[in-house]
């Protein structure tokens, strides 16, 4: 991987399903340390765009590069060492313990016949501790609550230790304390470990607080991207959500209230 190349780069990217276009000719670059918030209405194409960025769907046109190379050139395994993806929905068909579930995150770091070592176990235990699940190691995942499962998925992603985090609603199902804790965690990964983060969020105030850039997806193919302070304004957000908002400022932070 080219260390100087941006962790995520799209060129003339067009994404859509059938006749519906979500974005056209999108040029986006995300360097180490940058945090991008993706905002838009339900069904505007945020998750579809994210899965294209993760290499799970082919774009209608244009290309996606991670660490300077395309997914096809890297192959599945090397890609997995660079980008991690947090899905919105999960189904667990089989019973499994929390520890075993988070251990699958180590897969790209092991060779074909390899078994997880003590070092892998330590990385996974640290990840579980980071999401406040340290006591849950031996619990069956099918007995976890929605928010606990969400945090387990985040721990699995942390165990994978990618440099590019693509997060689809990372704070869904979480209580307030854990919403902030998880966003702090990803902001910290960007600040301290040189990760890049792109996340779908539904709360503009949290995007304002934890991200430095925002991508607004209007759902008709129109997209806007720029620094959060320029993007997250009352006018733009009211147009984006098609609902009038007002901004409230306190302690140097902004939150947005529906009128």
């Amino acid at each position, binding site marked *: 991987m080219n260390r100087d190349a941006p962790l995520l780069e799209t060129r003339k990217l067009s994404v859509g399903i059938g006749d519906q276009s979500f974005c056209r000719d999108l040029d986006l670059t995300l360097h180490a340390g940058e945090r991008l918030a993706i905002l838009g209405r339900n069904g505007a194409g945020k998750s579809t765009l994210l899965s294209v960025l993760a290499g799970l769907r082919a774009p209608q046109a244009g290309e996606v590069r991670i660490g300077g190379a395309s997914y096809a050139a890297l192959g599945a395994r090397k890609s997995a060492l660079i980008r991690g*993806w947090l899905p919105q929905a999960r189904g667990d068909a089989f019973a499994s313990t929390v520890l075993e579930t988070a251990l699958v995150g180590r897969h*790209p770091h092991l060779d074909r016949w390899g078994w997880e070592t003590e070092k892998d176990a330590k990385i996974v235990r640290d990840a579980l501790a980071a999401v406040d699940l340290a006591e849950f190691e031996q619990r069956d995942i099918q007995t976890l609550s929605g928010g606990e499962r969400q945090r387990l998925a985040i721990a699995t992603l942390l165990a994978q230790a990618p440099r590019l985090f693509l997060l689809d609603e990372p704070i869904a199902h979480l209580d307030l304390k854990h919403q902030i804790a998880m966003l702090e965690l990803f902001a910290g990964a960007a600040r301290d470990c040189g990760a890049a983060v792109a996340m779908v969020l539904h709360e503009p105030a949290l995007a304002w607080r934890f991200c430095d850039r925002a991508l607004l997806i209007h759902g008709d193919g129109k997209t806007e991207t720029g620094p959060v302070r320029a993007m997250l304004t009352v006018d733009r957000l009211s147009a984006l959500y098609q609902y009038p908002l007002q901004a409230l400022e306190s302690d140097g932070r902004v939150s947005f209230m529906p009128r």
Partner: protein
Amino acid sequence: MPTRRRALLILAALAGLAVLSIALALMAGSINIPISEVVSALFGTQESMAGEVVRSLRLPRALAGFACGGLLALAGSLLQVLLRNPLADPYVLGISGGAGVGALVALLFGFGLAGINGSAFLGALAAMLVVFGLAHGDGSWTQTRLLLTGVIVAAGCGAMVALMLSIAPDEKLRGMLFWLMGDLSQANDPGLVLGVLAAVLLLALPFSRELNLLTRGADMAQTLGVQVNRLRRGVYLAASLATAAAVTQAGSIGFIGLIVPHLVRLAVGNDQRLLLPASALAGGSLLVIADTLARTVIAPQQLPVGVLTALIGVPAFLFLLTRDSQRRR
């Protein structure tokens, strides 16, 4: 935490069980042969009636039974991962239905054993290709679509089987019914099925950690570095061939492919690195034990072993289901 050491210990214990089950099969029967004579028949050269029975009747049948049980259990665990459904079994994709149609056609036209086996195998292959082709038609792969196609093809095969049974002359009916119920009395050539069992296991094992990821969902597996489409095609092929080989040799023996992976998963967890070989060993042992019972409970008459596995399997499965639902409450 899964470790190689724990896996090897469990596999060693199961290998011991396999040896025990085969020893039991060699000893028990219409004449009981003590273990010392079994050992001398296997490794010695002396000629005796007991030695002849062990070497040319019981050993091939026990080994063929072991291989078929192992293949069915292995195919069952692979398909449960592929379909992400703990209740999938090797027959859910219509493979045994196709084999059944093939075998009954051969029986109806009075082919010999080789003809019946060949025709059953062709039927299994045909069903496999039809299901794969239809489910894979536009390149997309969903578990539901594969499952539904398999179920429909199986239903179609069931109708054809019923049609042939209803027009078959009376003297052929018994043979046809025995074939359909699963029967090891014709299984006297274990080499091929043992080879297929070893081949499928050796092919699947290097991919077993990737299979673990597949149980978490295709997209999850893909982002963690698995080439999902290639892996799924391979799993489908391996499981189908394993099923086809077992069904061709022994008819459609029910419940081994469903119960054994399920039991093993409850006992040792859902790590495919351990689950796949453990299922093969446990499935083989269970079928050998069931076949020994089928030969001995109302000896000298023999029961079709498929009836016994179903009689053991149904209550065991119902027990597991109710226990599972109670535990989750």
